[in-house]
Protein backbone atom coordinates (compact mmCIF):
# COMPACT_ATOMS: atom_id res chain seq x y z
CA UNK A 1 0.00 0.00 0.00
CA UNK A 2 1.18 3.46 -0.55
CA UNK A 3 -0.20 6.91 -0.03
CA UNK A 4 1.29 9.89 -1.74
CA UNK A 5 0.30 13.33 -0.63
CA UNK A 6 1.07 16.81 -1.66
CA UNK A 7 -1.38 18.56 0.52
CA UNK A 8 -2.06 22.20 0.86
CA UNK A 9 -5.06 24.05 2.15
CA UNK A 10 -5.24 27.71 1.27
CA UNK A 11 -7.64 29.97 3.08
CA UNK A 12 -7.62 31.88 6.29
CA UNK A 13 -6.24 29.05 8.33
CA UNK A 14 -3.88 26.74 6.59
CA UNK A 15 -4.24 23.39 8.31
CA UNK A 16 -1.69 21.46 6.28
CA UNK A 17 0.98 22.62 3.94
CA UNK A 18 2.93 20.73 1.36
CA UNK A 19 3.14 17.34 3.01
CA UNK A 20 4.61 14.48 1.02
CA UNK A 21 5.28 10.97 2.15
CA UNK A 22 4.20 7.39 1.86
CA UNK A 23 2.89 4.78 4.22
CA UNK A 24 4.14 1.27 3.59
CA UNK A 25 2.24 -1.98 3.74
CA UNK A 26 2.44 -3.58 7.18
CA UNK A 27 4.17 -0.78 9.02
CA UNK A 28 3.20 0.96 12.24
CA UNK A 29 3.48 4.69 11.67
CA UNK A 30 3.08 7.18 14.53
CA UNK A 31 2.15 10.77 13.83
CA UNK A 32 3.01 13.18 16.63
CA UNK A 33 2.85 16.93 17.02
CA UNK A 34 1.59 19.59 19.43
CA UNK A 35 -2.13 20.47 19.68
CA UNK A 36 -3.25 22.21 16.52
CA UNK A 37 -0.35 20.94 14.41
CA UNK A 38 -2.69 19.32 11.89
CA UNK A 39 -2.32 15.67 12.95
CA UNK A 40 -6.04 14.93 12.95
CA UNK A 41 -6.62 16.86 9.76
CA UNK A 42 -3.94 14.82 8.05
CA UNK A 43 -5.36 11.55 9.36
CA UNK A 44 -8.79 12.42 7.94
CA UNK A 45 -7.26 12.71 4.48
CA UNK A 46 -6.19 9.07 4.48
CA UNK A 47 -9.69 7.69 3.95
CA UNK A 48 -11.31 10.49 1.97
CA UNK A 49 -13.18 12.06 4.89
CA UNK A 50 -11.31 15.24 3.95
CA UNK A 51 -10.02 15.98 0.49
CA UNK A 52 -6.85 17.88 -0.30
CA UNK A 53 -7.20 21.46 -1.50
CA UNK A 54 -4.08 21.02 -3.54
CA UNK A 55 -2.10 17.89 -4.22
CA UNK A 56 -3.30 14.31 -4.14
CA UNK A 57 -3.72 11.45 -1.72
CA UNK A 58 -3.72 7.99 -3.22
CA UNK A 59 -4.48 4.66 -1.60
CA UNK A 60 -3.22 1.68 -3.56
CA UNK A 61 -3.14 3.88 -6.61
CA UNK A 62 -6.69 5.17 -6.11
CA UNK A 63 -7.01 8.91 -5.72
CA UNK A 64 -9.21 10.03 -2.83
CA UNK A 65 -10.36 12.99 -4.89
CA UNK A 66 -12.29 10.75 -7.29
CA UNK A 67 -15.79 10.17 -5.81
CA UNK A 68 -15.93 6.80 -7.59
CA UNK A 69 -13.10 5.54 -5.36
CA UNK A 70 -14.46 6.80 -2.08
CA UNK A 71 -16.20 3.65 -0.80
CA UNK A 72 -13.46 1.33 -1.97
CA UNK A 73 -10.93 3.48 -0.08
CA UNK A 74 -13.04 3.56 3.08
CA UNK A 75 -13.19 -0.24 3.06
CA UNK A 76 -9.43 -0.45 2.77
CA UNK A 77 -8.61 2.24 5.31
CA UNK A 78 -10.54 1.90 8.57
CA UNK A 79 -10.59 4.68 11.10
CA UNK A 80 -11.05 5.10 14.85
CA UNK A 81 -11.73 8.51 16.42
CA UNK A 82 -10.76 10.00 19.74
CA UNK A 83 -14.05 9.95 21.62
CA UNK A 84 -15.46 6.41 21.81
CA UNK A 85 -18.91 7.63 22.87
CA UNK A 86 -19.48 9.57 19.66
CA UNK A 87 -18.65 6.78 17.25
CA UNK A 88 -20.76 3.94 18.59
CA UNK A 89 -24.04 3.63 16.73
CA UNK A 90 -25.84 0.69 18.29
CA UNK A 91 -27.05 -0.24 21.74
CA UNK A 92 -25.53 -3.74 21.72
CA UNK A 93 -21.84 -4.52 21.18
CA UNK A 94 -22.20 -7.02 18.33
CA UNK A 95 -24.80 -4.92 16.55
CA UNK A 96 -22.40 -2.00 16.57
CA UNK A 97 -19.68 -4.11 14.99
CA UNK A 98 -22.17 -5.28 12.37
CA UNK A 99 -23.01 -1.71 11.34
CA UNK A 100 -20.17 -1.40 8.81
CA UNK A 101 -20.60 -4.76 7.02
CA UNK A 102 -24.37 -4.17 6.91
CA UNK A 103 -23.73 -0.89 5.14
CA UNK A 104 -21.77 -2.80 2.53
CA UNK A 105 -24.85 -4.88 1.83
CA UNK A 106 -23.12 -8.18 2.64
CA UNK A 107 -25.19 -11.34 3.15
CA UNK A 108 -26.16 -11.98 6.80
CA UNK A 109 -23.90 -15.07 7.19
CA UNK A 110 -20.87 -13.09 6.00
CA UNK A 111 -21.73 -10.23 8.36
CA UNK A 112 -21.93 -12.75 11.20
CA UNK A 113 -18.52 -14.24 10.32
CA UNK A 114 -16.89 -10.83 10.16
CA UNK A 115 -18.43 -9.68 13.42
CA UNK A 116 -17.26 -12.81 15.25
CA UNK A 117 -13.76 -12.49 13.92
CA UNK A 118 -13.49 -8.75 14.63
CA UNK A 119 -14.73 -9.24 18.18
CA UNK A 120 -12.22 -12.03 18.73
CA UNK A 121 -9.35 -9.91 17.40
CA UNK A 122 -10.29 -7.05 19.69
CA UNK A 123 -10.68 -9.42 22.64
CA UNK A 124 -14.36 -8.59 23.15
CA UNK A 125 -15.93 -11.99 22.47
CA UNK A 126 -17.33 -12.18 25.99
CA UNK A 127 -18.91 -8.74 25.84
CA UNK A 128 -20.80 -9.34 22.59
CA UNK A 129 -24.30 -8.91 24.01
CA UNK A 130 -23.61 -6.10 26.47
CA UNK A 131 -24.67 -2.51 25.90
CA UNK A 132 -21.64 -0.37 25.00
CA UNK A 133 -22.27 2.30 27.63
CA UNK A 134 -21.51 -0.25 30.33
CA UNK A 135 -18.04 -0.99 28.94
CA UNK A 136 -14.87 0.60 30.31
CA UNK A 137 -13.13 3.30 28.27
CA UNK A 138 -10.51 0.86 26.98
CA UNK A 139 -13.19 -1.65 26.01
CA UNK A 140 -15.23 1.01 24.20
CA UNK A 141 -12.21 2.00 22.18
CA UNK A 142 -11.48 -1.66 21.37
CA UNK A 143 -15.10 -1.92 20.27
CA UNK A 144 -14.53 0.98 17.89
CA UNK A 145 -11.46 -0.90 16.60
CA UNK A 146 -13.56 -4.04 16.12
CA UNK A 147 -16.11 -1.99 14.19
CA UNK A 148 -13.37 -0.85 11.84
CA UNK A 149 -11.88 -4.37 11.56
CA UNK A 150 -15.22 -5.80 10.46
CA UNK A 151 -14.77 -3.83 7.23
CA UNK A 152 -11.67 -5.98 6.61
CA UNK A 153 -9.37 -3.01 6.02
CA UNK A 154 -5.70 -3.42 5.21
CA UNK A 155 -4.89 -0.23 7.07
CA UNK A 156 -6.22 1.23 10.30
CA UNK A 157 -5.92 4.95 11.08
CA UNK A 158 -6.43 5.94 14.72
CA UNK A 159 -6.85 9.56 15.75
CA UNK A 160 -5.61 9.90 19.35
CA UNK A 161 -7.48 6.77 20.40
CA UNK A 162 -5.99 6.83 23.91
CA UNK A 163 -6.32 10.53 24.75
CA UNK A 164 -9.44 10.03 26.86
CA UNK A 165 -8.40 6.80 28.58
CA UNK A 166 -6.79 6.02 31.90
CA UNK A 167 -3.39 4.25 31.97
CA UNK A 168 -4.90 0.76 32.09
CA UNK A 169 -7.21 1.52 29.16
CA UNK A 170 -4.30 2.98 27.23
CA UNK A 171 -2.26 -0.18 27.72
CA UNK A 172 -5.20 -2.33 26.56
CA UNK A 173 -5.64 -0.38 23.36
CA UNK A 174 -1.93 -0.21 22.54
CA UNK A 175 -1.52 -3.95 23.16
CA UNK A 176 -4.43 -4.64 20.80
CA UNK A 177 -2.90 -2.45 18.11
CA UNK A 178 0.54 -4.02 18.46
CA UNK A 179 -0.83 -7.53 18.10
CA UNK A 180 -2.93 -6.52 15.08
CA UNK A 181 0.16 -5.07 13.48
CA UNK A 182 2.56 -7.89 14.33
CA UNK A 183 0.27 -10.89 14.03
CA UNK A 184 -2.30 -9.85 11.43
CA UNK A 185 0.06 -7.73 9.37
CA UNK A 186 -2.30 -4.78 9.49
CA UNK A 187 -0.85 -1.40 8.53
CA UNK A 188 -1.46 1.03 11.39
CA UNK A 189 -1.29 4.81 11.50
CA UNK A 190 -1.42 6.03 15.09
CA UNK A 191 -1.94 9.72 15.77
CA UNK A 192 -0.92 10.38 19.36
CA UNK A 193 0.54 12.90 21.75
CA UNK A 194 2.00 10.28 24.02
CA UNK A 195 5.70 9.93 23.20
CA UNK A 196 5.78 6.55 24.95
CA UNK A 197 3.39 5.28 22.25
CA UNK A 198 5.34 6.80 19.36
CA UNK A 199 8.41 4.88 20.53
CA UNK A 200 6.67 1.59 19.68
CA UNK A 201 6.22 2.53 16.01
CA UNK A 202 8.35 1.51 13.04
CA UNK A 203 8.41 5.08 11.83
CA UNK A 204 7.43 8.48 13.20
CA UNK A 205 6.21 11.63 11.48
CA UNK A 206 6.42 14.89 13.41
CA UNK A 207 3.99 17.64 12.44
CA UNK A 208 4.22 21.25 13.47
CA UNK A 209 2.19 24.15 12.13
CA UNK A 210 0.75 21.94 9.40
CA UNK A 211 4.13 20.91 8.05
CA UNK A 212 5.95 17.61 8.23
CA UNK A 213 9.10 18.70 10.09
CA UNK A 214 10.76 15.43 11.04
CA UNK A 215 10.44 11.86 9.85
CA UNK A 216 12.29 8.63 10.51
CA UNK A 217 12.59 5.71 12.91
CA UNK A 218 11.81 6.56 16.54
CA UNK A 219 15.55 6.50 17.27
CA UNK A 220 16.23 8.98 14.49
CA UNK A 221 13.38 11.31 15.35
CA UNK A 222 14.05 11.34 19.08
CA UNK A 223 17.69 12.17 18.51
CA UNK A 224 16.55 15.69 17.56
CA UNK A 225 15.98 16.80 21.13
CA UNK A 226 16.20 20.52 20.57
CA UNK A 227 14.08 20.61 17.45
CA UNK A 228 11.33 18.71 19.30
CA UNK A 229 11.55 20.94 22.34
CA UNK A 230 11.23 24.00 20.15
CA UNK A 231 7.82 22.86 18.90
CA UNK A 232 6.64 21.91 22.39
CA UNK A 233 7.31 18.18 22.39
CA UNK A 234 9.44 16.41 24.97
CA UNK A 235 11.56 13.29 24.55
CA UNK A 236 10.15 10.14 26.14
CA UNK A 237 11.43 10.01 29.73
CA UNK A 238 14.02 7.25 29.23
CA UNK A 239 15.42 8.97 26.12
CA UNK A 240 15.68 12.26 27.98
CA UNK A 241 17.57 10.69 30.87
CA UNK A 242 19.89 8.85 28.48
CA UNK A 243 20.58 12.14 26.72
CA UNK A 244 21.41 13.90 29.99
CA UNK A 245 23.77 11.16 31.10
CA UNK A 246 25.46 11.20 27.73
CA UNK A 247 25.84 14.98 28.01
CA UNK A 248 27.56 14.40 31.34
CA UNK A 249 30.07 12.16 29.61
CA UNK A 250 28.55 8.74 30.33
CA UNK A 251 29.11 6.22 27.56
CA UNK A 252 25.39 5.70 27.02
CA UNK A 253 24.74 4.69 23.42
CA UNK A 254 22.38 6.68 21.25
CA UNK A 255 18.99 5.25 20.40
CA UNK A 256 17.76 4.45 23.89
CA UNK A 257 13.99 4.96 23.85
CA UNK A 258 12.24 2.67 26.27
CA UNK A 259 12.61 1.92 29.94
CA UNK A 260 13.72 -1.61 29.08
CA UNK A 261 16.55 -0.23 26.93
CA UNK A 262 17.65 2.12 29.66
CA UNK A 263 17.53 -0.43 32.47
CA UNK A 264 19.53 -2.93 30.42
CA UNK A 265 22.10 -0.34 29.42
CA UNK A 266 22.60 1.11 32.89
CA UNK A 267 22.70 -2.29 34.55
CA UNK A 268 25.43 -3.39 32.13
CA UNK A 269 27.33 -0.18 32.44
CA UNK A 270 27.24 0.05 36.19
CA UNK A 271 27.98 -3.57 37.00
CA UNK A 272 30.76 -3.85 34.42
CA UNK A 273 32.61 -1.01 35.98
CA UNK A 274 32.20 -2.42 39.44
CA UNK A 275 30.09 0.43 40.81
CA UNK A 276 27.28 -1.90 41.45
CA UNK A 277 29.40 -3.75 43.98
CA UNK A 278 30.33 -0.71 46.04
Amino acid sequence: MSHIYHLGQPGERIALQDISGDIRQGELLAIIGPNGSGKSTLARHFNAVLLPTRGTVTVNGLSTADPANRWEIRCRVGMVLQNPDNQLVAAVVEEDVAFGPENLGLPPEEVRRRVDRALALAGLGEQRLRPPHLLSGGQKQRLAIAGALAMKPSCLVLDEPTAMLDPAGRREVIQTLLSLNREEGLTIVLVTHFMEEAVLADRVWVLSGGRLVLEGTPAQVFSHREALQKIGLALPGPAELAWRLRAAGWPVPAGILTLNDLVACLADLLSETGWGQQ
Partner: protein
Amino acid sequence: MILVEHLTHIYAPGTPLALTSLEDVSLRIEEGEFVVLAGATGSGKTTLVQHFNGLLLPTAGRVLVDGRDTRDKRVRRDLWRTVGLLFQNPEQQLFEENVFAEVAFGCRNLGLDEGTIEIRVRRALEMVGLEPVRFGTLSPFALSRGQQRRVALAGVLAYRPRVLVLDEPTSGLDPAAREQIWQMLKGMQQHGHTVVVITHHMEDAARYADRVVVLHRGKIYRQGTPRQVFGDPEGLRAVGLDVPMPGELMYRLRQRGLPVNTGILTLDEAEAELKKLAPSGKACPVM
Protein backbone atom coordinates in the same frame (compact mmCIF):
# COMPACT_ATOMS: atom_id res chain seq x y z
CA MET B 1 -10.15 22.87 55.27
CA ILE B 2 -12.10 19.91 53.87
CA LEU B 3 -12.93 17.01 56.10
CA VAL B 4 -14.54 13.85 54.76
CA GLU B 5 -15.85 11.42 57.32
CA HIS B 6 -17.00 7.89 56.50
CA LEU B 7 -18.46 9.06 53.21
CA THR B 8 -20.54 6.56 51.26
CA HIS B 9 -22.28 7.52 48.03
CA ILE B 10 -24.73 5.35 46.13
CA TYR B 11 -26.16 6.43 42.78
CA ALA B 12 -29.86 5.70 42.20
CA PRO B 13 -30.27 3.88 45.52
CA GLY B 14 -33.13 1.41 45.72
CA THR B 15 -33.40 0.87 41.95
CA PRO B 16 -32.08 -2.01 39.83
CA LEU B 17 -29.36 0.40 38.64
CA ALA B 18 -28.07 1.24 42.13
CA LEU B 19 -24.32 1.72 42.10
CA THR B 20 -22.05 2.21 45.08
CA SER B 21 -19.53 4.78 43.97
CA LEU B 22 -17.83 5.56 47.27
CA GLU B 23 -17.66 3.40 50.36
CA ASP B 24 -16.61 4.62 53.79
CA VAL B 25 -14.06 7.18 52.60
CA SER B 26 -12.39 9.37 55.22
CA LEU B 27 -10.02 12.10 54.15
CA ARG B 28 -8.66 15.41 55.40
CA ILE B 29 -7.42 18.16 53.13
CA GLU B 30 -5.43 20.87 54.88
CA GLU B 31 -5.43 24.56 54.08
CA GLY B 32 -2.74 25.38 51.50
CA GLU B 33 -2.12 21.76 50.53
CA PHE B 34 -1.62 20.46 46.97
CA VAL B 35 -3.39 17.10 46.75
CA VAL B 36 -3.58 14.81 43.73
CA LEU B 37 -6.42 12.30 43.49
CA ALA B 38 -5.57 9.32 41.31
CA GLY B 39 -7.37 6.14 40.34
CA ALA B 40 -8.64 4.26 37.32
CA THR B 41 -11.85 5.33 35.58
CA GLY B 42 -14.80 4.47 37.79
CA SER B 43 -12.78 4.51 41.01
CA GLY B 44 -14.96 7.31 42.41
CA LYS B 45 -12.65 10.33 42.06
CA THR B 46 -15.18 12.54 40.33
CA THR B 47 -17.95 11.53 42.71
CA LEU B 48 -15.69 12.41 45.63
CA VAL B 49 -14.82 15.92 44.46
CA GLN B 50 -18.44 16.71 43.65
CA HIS B 51 -19.08 16.31 47.37
CA PHE B 52 -16.55 19.05 48.13
CA ASN B 53 -18.77 21.83 46.77
CA GLY B 54 -22.09 20.26 47.66
CA LEU B 55 -23.14 19.14 44.17
CA LEU B 56 -23.57 15.66 45.59
CA LEU B 57 -24.62 14.80 49.11
CA PRO B 58 -23.45 11.79 51.10
CA THR B 59 -25.68 8.73 51.21
CA ALA B 60 -23.97 8.11 54.55
CA GLY B 61 -21.23 9.94 56.44
CA ARG B 62 -20.55 13.66 56.10
CA VAL B 63 -18.36 16.28 54.46
CA LEU B 64 -17.27 19.43 56.31
CA VAL B 65 -15.83 22.48 54.57
CA ASP B 66 -14.35 24.99 57.01
CA GLY B 67 -16.13 23.02 59.70
CA ARG B 68 -19.54 23.49 58.07
CA ASP B 69 -21.63 20.50 57.03
CA THR B 70 -22.47 20.40 53.30
CA ARG B 71 -25.84 18.81 54.07
CA ASP B 72 -26.98 22.20 55.43
CA LYS B 73 -28.84 23.92 52.61
CA ARG B 74 -27.61 27.41 53.49
CA VAL B 75 -24.02 26.24 53.64
CA ARG B 76 -24.38 24.51 50.29
CA ARG B 77 -25.79 27.53 48.50
CA ASP B 78 -22.60 29.55 48.99
CA LEU B 79 -20.12 26.72 48.91
CA TRP B 80 -19.11 27.40 45.31
CA ARG B 81 -17.53 30.69 46.45
CA THR B 82 -15.10 28.78 48.67
CA VAL B 83 -14.58 25.63 46.63
CA GLY B 84 -14.12 26.32 42.92
CA LEU B 85 -14.72 23.12 40.97
CA LEU B 86 -13.64 22.85 37.34
CA PHE B 87 -15.25 19.92 35.54
CA GLN B 88 -13.57 17.56 33.13
CA ASN B 89 -13.50 19.00 29.58
CA PRO B 90 -14.64 22.40 30.88
CA GLU B 91 -14.47 23.86 27.37
CA GLN B 92 -17.85 22.18 26.89
CA GLN B 93 -19.56 24.51 29.36
CA LEU B 94 -18.65 27.80 27.62
CA PHE B 95 -21.65 29.84 26.48
CA GLU B 96 -21.01 33.61 26.50
CA GLU B 97 -20.52 35.70 23.38
CA ASN B 98 -17.00 36.76 24.27
CA VAL B 99 -14.11 35.58 26.40
CA PHE B 100 -14.36 38.51 28.80
CA ALA B 101 -18.01 37.80 29.65
CA GLU B 102 -17.26 34.09 29.94
CA VAL B 103 -14.51 34.63 32.50
CA ALA B 104 -16.63 37.24 34.32
CA PHE B 105 -19.60 34.87 34.75
CA GLY B 106 -18.52 33.61 38.18
CA CYS B 107 -17.64 37.14 39.38
CA ARG B 108 -21.07 38.41 38.28
CA ASN B 109 -22.72 35.64 40.25
CA LEU B 110 -20.68 36.82 43.26
CA GLY B 111 -22.28 40.25 42.79
CA LEU B 112 -19.03 42.21 42.39
CA ASP B 113 -19.01 45.68 40.87
CA GLU B 114 -17.90 46.17 37.26
CA GLY B 115 -14.58 47.81 38.18
CA THR B 116 -13.50 44.90 40.35
CA ILE B 117 -14.72 42.40 37.76
CA GLU B 118 -12.66 44.10 35.05
CA ILE B 119 -9.50 43.90 37.16
CA ARG B 120 -10.08 40.30 38.17
CA VAL B 121 -10.88 39.08 34.67
CA ARG B 122 -7.75 40.71 33.26
CA ARG B 123 -5.63 39.21 36.01
CA ALA B 124 -7.15 35.75 35.50
CA LEU B 125 -6.61 35.86 31.74
CA GLU B 126 -2.98 36.85 32.26
CA MET B 127 -2.52 33.99 34.70
CA VAL B 128 -3.62 31.43 32.13
CA GLY B 129 -1.45 33.06 29.47
CA LEU B 130 -4.17 34.66 27.33
CA GLU B 131 -3.53 38.32 26.59
CA PRO B 132 -6.67 40.17 27.81
CA VAL B 133 -6.60 42.78 25.04
CA ARG B 134 -6.26 40.25 22.28
CA PHE B 135 -8.58 37.53 23.54
CA GLY B 136 -11.14 39.47 25.61
CA THR B 137 -13.42 40.32 22.70
CA LEU B 138 -13.15 37.02 20.79
CA SER B 139 -15.92 34.45 20.86
CA PRO B 140 -14.89 31.49 23.02
CA PHE B 141 -16.13 29.22 20.25
CA ALA B 142 -13.52 30.60 17.84
CA LEU B 143 -10.59 29.45 20.01
CA SER B 144 -8.60 26.25 19.86
CA ARG B 145 -9.43 23.53 22.35
CA GLY B 146 -6.38 24.30 24.49
CA GLN B 147 -7.29 27.99 24.60
CA GLN B 148 -10.90 27.18 25.48
CA ARG B 149 -9.63 25.06 28.34
CA ARG B 150 -7.65 28.03 29.62
CA VAL B 151 -10.65 30.35 29.35
CA ALA B 152 -12.68 27.93 31.48
CA LEU B 153 -9.84 27.79 33.99
CA ALA B 154 -9.62 31.60 34.09
CA GLY B 155 -13.36 31.64 34.82
CA VAL B 156 -12.70 29.84 38.10
CA LEU B 157 -9.54 31.78 39.00
CA ALA B 158 -11.36 35.11 38.50
CA TYR B 159 -13.79 34.65 41.36
CA ARG B 160 -10.91 33.56 43.61
CA PRO B 161 -12.20 30.55 45.53
CA ARG B 162 -9.86 29.54 48.36
CA VAL B 163 -9.93 25.92 47.25
CA LEU B 164 -9.39 24.96 43.61
CA VAL B 165 -10.64 21.52 42.61
CA LEU B 166 -9.87 20.44 39.06
CA ASP B 167 -11.11 17.26 37.41
CA GLU B 168 -8.48 16.15 34.88
CA PRO B 169 -7.49 19.65 33.79
CA THR B 170 -4.79 18.41 31.42
CA SER B 171 -6.59 15.59 29.60
CA GLY B 172 -6.14 15.79 25.84
CA LEU B 173 -3.47 18.52 26.02
CA ASP B 174 0.03 18.26 24.62
CA PRO B 175 3.10 18.18 26.92
CA ALA B 176 3.79 21.93 26.69
CA ALA B 177 0.21 22.93 27.53
CA ARG B 178 0.13 20.37 30.33
CA GLU B 179 3.28 21.76 31.89
CA GLN B 180 1.84 25.29 31.74
CA ILE B 181 -1.26 24.30 33.68
CA TRP B 182 0.67 22.49 36.39
CA GLN B 183 3.04 25.46 36.81
CA MET B 184 0.08 27.76 37.15
CA LEU B 185 -1.56 25.56 39.76
CA LYS B 186 1.68 25.42 41.76
CA GLY B 187 1.71 29.23 41.62
CA MET B 188 -1.83 29.32 42.99
CA GLN B 189 -0.73 27.16 45.90
CA GLN B 190 2.15 29.54 46.61
CA HIS B 191 -0.41 32.33 46.80
CA GLY B 192 -2.14 30.44 49.58
CA HIS B 193 -4.79 28.48 47.71
CA THR B 194 -5.58 24.88 48.45
CA VAL B 195 -5.37 22.81 45.27
CA VAL B 196 -6.96 19.42 44.58
CA VAL B 197 -6.33 17.83 41.16
CA ILE B 198 -7.63 14.63 39.61
CA THR B 199 -5.19 13.22 37.07
CA HIS B 200 -3.93 10.09 35.35
CA HIS B 201 -0.52 11.63 34.70
CA MET B 202 1.51 10.12 37.48
CA GLU B 203 4.74 11.86 36.51
CA ASP B 204 3.05 15.23 36.92
CA ALA B 205 1.51 14.13 40.19
CA ALA B 206 4.93 13.09 41.46
CA ARG B 207 6.42 16.47 40.66
CA TYR B 208 3.75 18.77 42.02
CA ALA B 209 1.71 17.07 44.74
CA ASP B 210 2.32 17.34 48.47
CA ARG B 211 0.11 14.35 48.92
CA VAL B 212 -1.28 11.68 46.61
CA VAL B 213 -4.52 9.87 47.36
CA VAL B 214 -5.21 6.75 45.30
CA LEU B 215 -8.79 5.54 45.02
CA HIS B 216 -9.72 2.03 43.94
CA ARG B 217 -13.31 0.86 43.55
CA GLY B 218 -14.67 3.59 45.77
CA LYS B 219 -12.21 3.17 48.62
CA ILE B 220 -8.95 4.82 49.55
CA TYR B 221 -6.26 2.42 48.42
CA ARG B 222 -3.11 4.39 49.29
CA GLN B 223 -2.33 7.85 50.52
CA GLY B 224 0.80 9.70 51.48
CA THR B 225 3.60 11.77 50.02
CA PRO B 226 4.44 10.99 46.39
CA ARG B 227 7.56 9.21 47.62
CA GLN B 228 5.53 6.89 49.83
CA VAL B 229 2.84 6.19 47.26
CA PHE B 230 5.07 5.74 44.21
CA GLY B 231 7.56 3.61 46.14
CA ASP B 232 5.27 0.64 45.40
CA PRO B 233 5.08 0.23 41.61
CA GLU B 234 3.47 -3.22 41.78
CA GLY B 235 0.65 -2.01 44.01
CA LEU B 236 -0.16 0.89 41.72
CA ARG B 237 -0.11 -1.20 38.58
CA ALA B 238 -2.52 -3.62 40.22
CA VAL B 239 -5.16 -0.85 40.34
CA GLY B 240 -4.58 0.26 36.76
CA LEU B 241 -2.22 3.16 37.33
CA ASP B 242 1.22 3.96 35.98
CA VAL B 243 4.29 4.62 38.04
CA PRO B 244 6.44 7.63 37.16
CA MET B 245 9.26 6.45 34.91
CA PRO B 246 12.17 7.62 37.12
CA GLY B 247 10.84 5.71 40.14
CA GLU B 248 10.25 2.61 38.03
CA LEU B 249 13.79 2.83 36.65
CA MET B 250 15.35 2.97 40.10
CA TYR B 251 13.12 0.17 41.33
CA ARG B 252 14.27 -2.06 38.48
CA LEU B 253 17.95 -1.17 38.83
CA ARG B 254 17.66 -2.01 42.47
CA GLN B 255 16.11 -5.38 41.59
CA ARG B 256 19.23 -5.97 39.52
CA GLY B 257 21.33 -5.46 42.61
CA LEU B 258 22.48 -1.89 42.07
CA PRO B 259 22.73 0.24 45.22
CA VAL B 260 20.34 3.01 44.18
CA ASN B 261 17.78 4.86 46.23
CA THR B 262 14.27 3.92 45.12
CA GLY B 263 12.42 6.94 46.51
CA ILE B 264 12.99 8.86 43.28
CA LEU B 265 10.27 10.92 41.64
CA THR B 266 11.62 13.17 38.93
CA LEU B 267 14.08 12.97 36.08
CA ASP B 268 16.31 15.49 37.85
CA GLU B 269 16.45 13.32 40.93
CA ALA B 270 17.16 10.22 38.87
CA GLU B 271 19.95 12.01 37.08
CA ALA B 272 21.49 13.15 40.36
CA GLU B 273 21.14 9.69 41.92
CA LEU B 274 22.87 8.00 38.99
CA LYS B 275 25.64 10.56 38.96
CA LYS B 276 26.28 9.75 42.61
CA LEU B 277 27.27 6.28 41.46
CA ALA B 278 29.68 7.65 38.89
CA PRO B 279 30.45 11.23 39.84
CA SER B 280 32.30 12.02 36.67
CA GLY B 281 31.54 10.59 33.30
CA LYS B 282 35.22 10.63 32.55
CA ALA B 283 35.78 7.92 35.12
CA CYS B 284 33.69 5.59 32.98
CA PRO B 285 35.51 3.21 30.76
CA VAL B 286 34.36 3.64 27.18
CA MET B 287 32.27 0.70 26.08
